[in-house]
């Protein structure tokens, strides 16, 4: 029995309470343990990745109860990849949070951070539908805490909206699971797949409802139009490092869609036929469009980046909604790219916000303007999907995969047009942020960042940034994007193998169900 699989969930689940109990009042100890835990998680993820690389699917039966009766964790190429992605991102974010001193602007940042990781990693690893719900709740409630970290009026108000909207989503999740259970009598995903395939075709209505409700739940997480409304205000008002971490949260939704709708309600399943394709692709196209409009139309940098995150989800879901191995491989590549890119831009946005506020109006030059301008330029290239960074490769891959689709022209048109709008928006923002300030006519301008929030910051918790450290993760993320571009070939080989594994679920199902419970 390979205990590595549970490690990514148990480690943070132990570190976090430890931080809460023992080192509540020791800022530096907290930092040390938090970083150490994330580093350890990276190592674990690496081990998992290597063990899944060759296509082996490993199952971990919690409580030693055989599937489908107990809860199981499943490690396959997809989950291993997502775990790796999460841990790498987490390392960058935690370093930035420390470097910028964000972790000290409120209580329990590191504990919540660890719990958040536990939730995300658990969601990627579990093979049980209800357990997926539990991990969704863990990552959600942790995200509530992180989102309002540091307090402040606007942030709290945005927090209320974020929580309420997601509580609606959670209720929907329960209803969906109840429906599925009461039709099939099981909760284990592989078992669901088997039973759904065996269901009598003269009684499909209820299962279809359950399936589509589940899809809607995941669509909320993945910020698919018109279920994306929670995202802009939440991400724009969250602490930017937290928003950077949230870049992986929306991927959880995408992952769940991919998992459920290849394994359980796959393209081959007659009962749920025409449930996904009918609206997911148009919705994804709309998502991309609206996101790009937001990039051009935003008055505020944080909001602009939030809409950037929406565009990347749009592109990702276009690829996913095609449900072909080729498109899925492209989607997975794009998922890696968009996660790093969104995180990178949120971090850069924080560098800007800390210096001159986020409003897109000319202000006098900020400190380190040149360096930050360069970083922003690189980030913008990545987000707009311009060469030479991975965004361009990803976009080409998605467009190339779309050829097989009947809607290829619509897809190409939307992707290309929105790219143009994105370029316009980002060049506009960059020019305002980094060029206009050098204008001779530039009169000194009061900090536009709403002061009352600054006043609301806790004076007792003076942020303690570690100078210079903040830039390290930013450069690291850029390096990651460069590596993703240069190594596009090997990465695509992995994602193609992953897609192949996803679209041949019988292997997964057998590994999960045939294993005799000891």
């Amino acid at each position: 029995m390979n205990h590595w699989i549970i490690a990514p969930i148990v480690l943070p689940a132990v570190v976090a309470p430890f931080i809460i109990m023992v080192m509540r009042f020791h800022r530096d100890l907290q930092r040390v343990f938090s970083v150490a835990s994330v580093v350890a998680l990276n190592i674990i993820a690496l081990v998992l990745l290597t063990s899944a690389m060759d296509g082996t699917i490993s199952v971990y039966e919690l409580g030693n109860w055989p599937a489908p009766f107990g809860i199981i964790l499943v490690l396959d190429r997809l989950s291993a990849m997502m775990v790796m992605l999460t841990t790498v991102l987490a390392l960058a974010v935690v370093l930035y949070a420390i470097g910028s001193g964000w972790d000290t602007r409120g209580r329990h940042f590191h504990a919540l951070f660890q719990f958040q990781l536990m939730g995300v990693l658990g969601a990627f690893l579990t093979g049980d539908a209800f357990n997926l719900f539990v991990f969704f709740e863990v990552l959600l409630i942790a995200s509530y805490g992180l989102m309002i970290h540091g307090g402040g009026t606007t942030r709290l108000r945005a927090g209320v909206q974020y929580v309420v909207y997601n509580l609606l989503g959670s209720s929907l999740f329960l209803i969906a699971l109840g429906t599925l259970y009461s039709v099939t009598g099981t909760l284990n995903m592989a078992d669901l797949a088997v039973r759904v395939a065996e269901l009598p075709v003269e009684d499909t209505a209820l299962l279809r409802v359950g399936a589509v409700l589940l899809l809607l739940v995941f669509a909320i997480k993945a910020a698919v139009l018109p279920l994306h409304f929670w995202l802009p205000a939440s991400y724009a008002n969250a602490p930017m490092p937290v928003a950077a971490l949230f870049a992986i949260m929306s991927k959880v939704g995408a992952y769940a869609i991919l998992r459920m709708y290849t394994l359980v309600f796959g393209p081959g399943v007659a009962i749920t036929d025409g449930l996904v394709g009918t609206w997911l692709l148009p919705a994804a196209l709309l998502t991309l469009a609206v996101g790009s409009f937001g990039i051009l139309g935003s008055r505020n940098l944080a909001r602009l980046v939030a809409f950037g995150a929406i565009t990347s989800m749009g592109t990702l879901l276009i690829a996913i909604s095609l449900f072909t191995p080729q498109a899925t491989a492209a989607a997975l590549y794009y998922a890696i790219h968009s996660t790093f890119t969104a995180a990178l831009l949120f971090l850069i946005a924080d560098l800007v916000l800390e210096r001159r506020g986020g409003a897109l109006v000319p202000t006098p030059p900020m400190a380190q303007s040149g360096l930050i301008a360069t970083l922003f330029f690189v980030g913008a290239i990545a987000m707009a999907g311009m060469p030479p960074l991975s965004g361009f490769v990803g976009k080409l891959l998605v467009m190339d995969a779309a050829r097989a689709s009947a809607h290829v022209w619509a897809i190409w048109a939307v992707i290309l047009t929105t790219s143009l709008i994105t370029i316009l928006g980002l060049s506009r923002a960059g020019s305002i942020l980094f060029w206009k300030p050098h204008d001779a006519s530039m009169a000194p301008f009061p900090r536009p960042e709403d002061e009352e929030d600054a006043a609301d910051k806790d004076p007792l918790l003076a942020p303690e940034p570690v100078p210079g450290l903040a830039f390290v993760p930013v450069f690291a993320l850029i390096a990651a994007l460069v590596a993703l571009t240069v190594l596009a070939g090997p990465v695509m080989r992995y994602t193609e193998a992953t897609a192949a594994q996803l679209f041949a679920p019988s292997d997964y199902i057998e590994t999960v169900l045939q294993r005799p419970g000891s």
Partner: protein
Amino acid sequence: MSLFLIAALPFLGAVFPALLIRAGRNAAAGSTFAVTLLALIGLLLHAPAVLRGETVSARLDWLPTLGLNANFQLDGLGLLFAGLILGIGLLIIAYARFYLAREDPMGQFYCFLLLFQGAMVGIVLSDNILLLLVFWELTSLSSFLLIGYWKHLPEGRQGARMALAVTASGGLAMIAGMLILGNIVGSYDLSEILQHRDLIQASPLYAPALILILLGCFTKSAQFPFHFWLPHAMAAPTPVSAYLHSATMVKAGLFLMARMWPVLSGTDLWFYIVGSVGLITMILGAVIALFKDDLKALLAFSTVSHLGLITMLLGFGTKVAAVGAVFHIINHATFKAALFMNAGIVDHGVHTRDIKQLGGLRHLMPVTFTLATIAALSMAGIPPFNGFLSKEMMLEEATHAVWAGVPWLVPALAVFGALFSVAYSLRYIVHVFLGKTRHDYPTKPHDPTPGLWLPPAVLVALVVLIGLFPNVIATPIVSAAALAVTGTPVEFHPALWHGLTPALYLSVVAVLGGALLLAAHHGALGIWNNLPRPEAKVIFDAIIRATTAATRRITDTLHDGSLTRYAAIFLVFTLAISYYAFASGVLGPQTHTSLPISVMPVLGWVCLVGSALCVVAFHRNRLLALVLIGVSGLIVSLTFNYLSAPDLALTQISVEVVTIILLLLALNFMPQQTPRESTPARRTRDVVISITAGLGVGGLIYALMTRDFAMPSISEYHVANSYKGGGGTNVVNVILVDFRGFDTFGEIIVLGIAAIIIFAITEAVLGSGVRARLLNRKPSYPLAGDPHPLMMVVATRVMMPIALMVAAYIFFRGHNMPGGGFIAGLIAAIAVVMQYMASGFSWATDRQRLPYHGIIGTGVLVAAITGMGAWFNGKPFLTSAFGYVHLPYLEKFELATAALFDLGVFLAVLGAVLLALQSLARYAWQPGIVSEHPMDINPERDDASETIEGH
């Protein structure tokens, strides 16, 4: 030198100037020069082979699945362009060193320049159209940086953004075009694509592919109607203009048309699009150029015009025309780069580029004058300079071109354009240098240092030499390039004199006409100014502004921050989709027999529904709403109990109590009433939505309940194995702590997180300005006369141990009877909360030893460690073990690790609830209300009225 290295050198070299600038401007410039020179040498090493007609190539797989590979190849065309890019690049680098002012960040400049150079070299060396796209977009990006180099100038910023918008959009169109092209051929390798002329031109997708690719070329090469960005790019420093607009950026489009010429040209579509666009652009540019007073603007539009000329030649689709195009590319590059630098020199020397303020400079700036004259005459197409040769070829070809059956149209227009081109070229000489010396120059004009005039001098020398000995200098490279373009060896023997050809007559007409036109310039200007003409920039800006405004309006209306609207949309969408899913499926018959309805449930139903409806009816009175919802919760738990779910009943009721307490405490700080805000229309909308949702959910569960499982539920296994496998007879509890203990593990973590979040918010809020407001807030209700009534205090003190004992009992029976750690935890918590309520916050806190954080942490850790315990006997996480112990005088009882796990649950719940309530209570804390004596009932007590604890 490997092509990889040649293509990579500029990019690698780009770091040097950026770093070396600390070592001074010469170091930066020197390193840039060296890098470029190295690349040029590397290129020239291949020249002999290429001139022999061979092609050098270097291939490397990058992303084979997509067909995007790092394949480079060098043929005549590539050599020609790469040579121009690097060669003229060298001159520009030298020139810029002396041109840029001291305050300009030169390191940045050279860094951008090298990036741009690398992108250009990449384009002309790519053998893979996707790779070419990469470099193509890179030129857009790097030119954006170069044009916006003077960020303090609004023109610079706008020009840069305009150039980016236009060229990038073209590039995006080209992406689609290239994908289609690759789709037709089945490969993205140029050398492969160029083999399939017939296949491509036969394909139904030929037209879209051609148009999309041409969009890319036209935007890049500033062809009508995309010509407008080029003049605005003139806000860049002159070296940039000289580089981008003579040899490189704008030539990229031409290069691509020449590259694709073998497979795309030769069709009517190609002729009519490319030829006509080129012709229009040529004339338009020439005419506008004549009436521009800014030297750089004049040159910019003349560039547009010459680009049009070359495009037109390519458009004709004949081999000879293509050769002429190639030849003119060289000639234009030489004299135009020279002229741009020359304009820069004038700007430097006189501090103006306005022709109106110039004139008579020939004596003051003799060197500049000489250079300008030769270059301008070449531009005008006057022998014996190289411009004449290629212009002759153009006119020659124009006479052969038949446009829509009209033989005279193209020649006539061509001459017309040539005529204007002569006029503005001469104007550059006459109005700037000739005429009498003026005395109102902004500064005293003077010839520049050699650093500024040598680079153009080199080019002017070329202009002359090519003009005099074309066959020696130009023929080899031109024929090599022509071979690459046309695919067949072409005879190319330009000569200054080849008899009295029609082209010659046309030339003469053009020259004379041009001279006359210049003489009449003043009058012509008058007419020109009275002509109504659309100002491209205005239109472009209007479009951009409109788009931005539109997107902003859409964004703001969609995301107006109204959660109510978001939720409504969410609900409607969900209902619609799930109805679709339901309707598109088949609903089977009912199979499950319903239970009979007796009196009790009906009563319960009435209470439940009644209370729920009352909540809605009276929700504006918040306290009442709380009471009513408490009733609903109670009935729900009774329902659970009635329907054989005792555990649920217990849990529900205890959670209910805690929740209500929490809400009560919170309500204490909030308004007691909810104002009536929404309009009747809104309320009707909401009613409709809610009723639909209610029907949906109710209907769904009814349908589910009245059907049996399609297959046996996995829970049968749980019932069967609960006792022998899990060691407990309460199956629900065994599922919670054993079968699905992992869910419970997550669940207590959720609770723990909830508690620390609440603690964190409280900290944040109390740390902010809110604290002051809280400290001197007036309670919304009149305080009870005695906040700590004796009865209550005593009762709670007595209750405490009993409650704890009940908790312990519930805890231990949990595994076999209804109960368990969670419920026990809540009961214990309630017991403690009672103390808070009865005896006051301060009193209770004083006596509370263990920090709640600690309790939560311990709980989670206990649960986790229990789970990990299984590892030590090689079992997976959370594997339970249990045994039965006999103690004297006691019935045998069970020891199970599950119980330990449950203990974790107990602690976590206890700690979480208490931390939450305590944090909330801290809002209420006000100074001077510490009731030292909660059991003192002396009415004279002074602080009786101030205390607000425990309401």
